[in-house]
């Protein structure tokens, strides 16, 4: 131990690691076993198979099989008026916000603009239609987009506005293999998910 601390470089690494843990709060991955019930905000989800659950210090929560760049399900946990649907690393000034009273069309545009703010390109929304989500009347739509480096991606989203708050699951992944790999699970998750908006 003394030997480790006597090395300035290693000490700096330890301090850096400690600082990064402090900065990110309780951020990290945990394993969700198939069949397990999980609460994500006021949403409750049953995992159809094993998934990795990320809880970020900024409140972001997503599930992934192979890593977020390859595919992930993002949970939008009840976003209120004038709030961004989820934190992005893009230009803060141009982050689009959810507004009370938005129609499904405007919400699909909000998702489109937020993805563009994440520097995803050529984001297209198709097949926007009425759907149920979390036991509430809502909507769903599919998406195509490319990453900044030119990787083709696909997306599928479900959502509902309950008591003026926006709840969504947004699944996206690389068009080649990875989107399809998690799609059946995602569809089961979106169908079985329940929202208890009374908790908010």
């Amino acid at each position, binding site marked *: 131990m003394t030997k480790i601390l006597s090395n300035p470089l290693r000490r700096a690494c330890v301090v850096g690691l400690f600082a990064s843990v402090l900065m990110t709060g309780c951020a990290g991955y945990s394993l969700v076993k198939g069949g397990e019930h999980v609460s994500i905000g006021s949403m409750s989800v049953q995992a159809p198979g094993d998934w990795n659950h990320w809880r970020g210090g900024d409140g972001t929560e997503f599930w992934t099989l192979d890593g977020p760049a390859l595919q992930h399900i993002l949970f939008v946990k009840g976003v209120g008026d004038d709030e961004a649907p989820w934190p992005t690393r893009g*230009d803060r*000034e*141009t982050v*689009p916000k959810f*507004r009370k009273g938005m*129609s*499904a*069309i*405007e919400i699909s*545009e909000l998702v*489109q*603009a937020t993805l*563009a*703010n994440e520097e995803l*390109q*050529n*984001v297209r929304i*198709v*097949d*926007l*239609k*009425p759907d149920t989500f979390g036991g509430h009347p809502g*909507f769903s739509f599919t998406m195509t987009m*490319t*990453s*900044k*480096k*030119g*990787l*083709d991606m696909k997306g599928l989203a479900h959502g509902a506005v309950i008591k003026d708050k926006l709840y969504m699951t947004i699944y996206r992944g690389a068009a080649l293999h990875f989107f399809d790999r998690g799609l059946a699970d995602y569809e089961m998750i979106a169908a079985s998910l329940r929202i208890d908006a009374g908790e908010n």
Partner: protein
Amino acid sequence: MTTISAAFSRTAAAFALVLAAGMLTTCKTDNLGAYDAPLANRQNADAAESPPLPYRTGDLKPNERPAPDSDEAGLWFIADRAESQIRTSGNRITDPKINAYLKNVVCRIAGPHCKDIRVYLLRVPASNASMSPNGTMQIWSGFLLRFRNEAQLASVIGHEAGHYLRRHSLQRMRNIIEQTNTFSFLQFALAGVGAGAGIGILDVAMTGGIFAFSRDNEREADGYGILLMSEAGYDPREASKMWKQVLREEKAHKDAESRRPEPFSSTHPAGEERAEILARLATRVMTRTSTDVGRDRFLEAVLPIRGGLLRDELHRRQFDTFAELLDMLMEDGANMAELHYFKGELHRLRGKKDDAKIALDAYNAAKTAEGSAPKDIDRSMALVYRRLGRPDDARAALRRYLEANPDASDAAIVRQMLEGS
């Protein structure tokens, strides 16, 4: 020992990434000397029938590839691999017409080097173009959207061709080696880390994280750009005009310091200086035959894809600059319906005070203007009417939308809105 060796390899790999990316990537850039270099051999700017200017020593000959055992060959090897990724990139605009058009302009500018320069149009809503040492030219769609005519496009292609012909990447690499004696370090790193590092280099090179060319390289490329465009019969004054347009957009930023600058302009000479010097150079290279602006040809090629590029720009949500861009495009007056529609979209999405009314005015102008607006204009109008508390008008607009787009993929949700409103 193994650990130390591995750690050193990683450091070497990281350094190599930075260095190689720096050598490969796009354009950076103040004395008139560098600007002047391409014009140095020109005897008399007013001599309309003067012979084509010979390229200076060190320029690539047509069809030339570097000797396999040269340092330049290594640079080309990396650039070739990067190009193979660009070729299959999902961001590439593959529409044959626009690509054929761009290639024609490249050939007109590059002359005997036409086959050596391969141009790729990438769908990226920002103003940038770049050149790799092996002749890979990238033009981003956001730049294409901002040109007003073919001569302006030609000025950028000429600038990039200047980087290629003058082997600026190689110059840059050799300067770094001379100054830091790091080439052996780079070779060691590339040999030691194998394919993994290769991918990293391409990654950094393609995303242009580090801008390679020196400011003098950029000035020289500007000089080449203006000379080549003039030699090809284009009006060289358009190069300066293009930079004035860029300046107009920059001025439209409400708070320039808090926003990200455009990559191309940020690494190039300051805009005002550039516009002024390019205007001065234009007067020196202008001949009686360099008068082609090519507005109609440019619009014919770009208008079919412009709507998609404007939508990309809208998604950036940099509303002040987008408004200025729309104003500039409106001055050209091509497909005004489309431009009024996007003005409406801008104000609808910005959603500040009075924006709803301005949006409606713009949509109404789009309906009567020359050209054609996107088919979802009535849906957009309905959303604005809803916001203004005019449900009857919203319903009427939604009905018009469904009549015009009976097979729209969102028809079900629009019908639901009609029933619920």
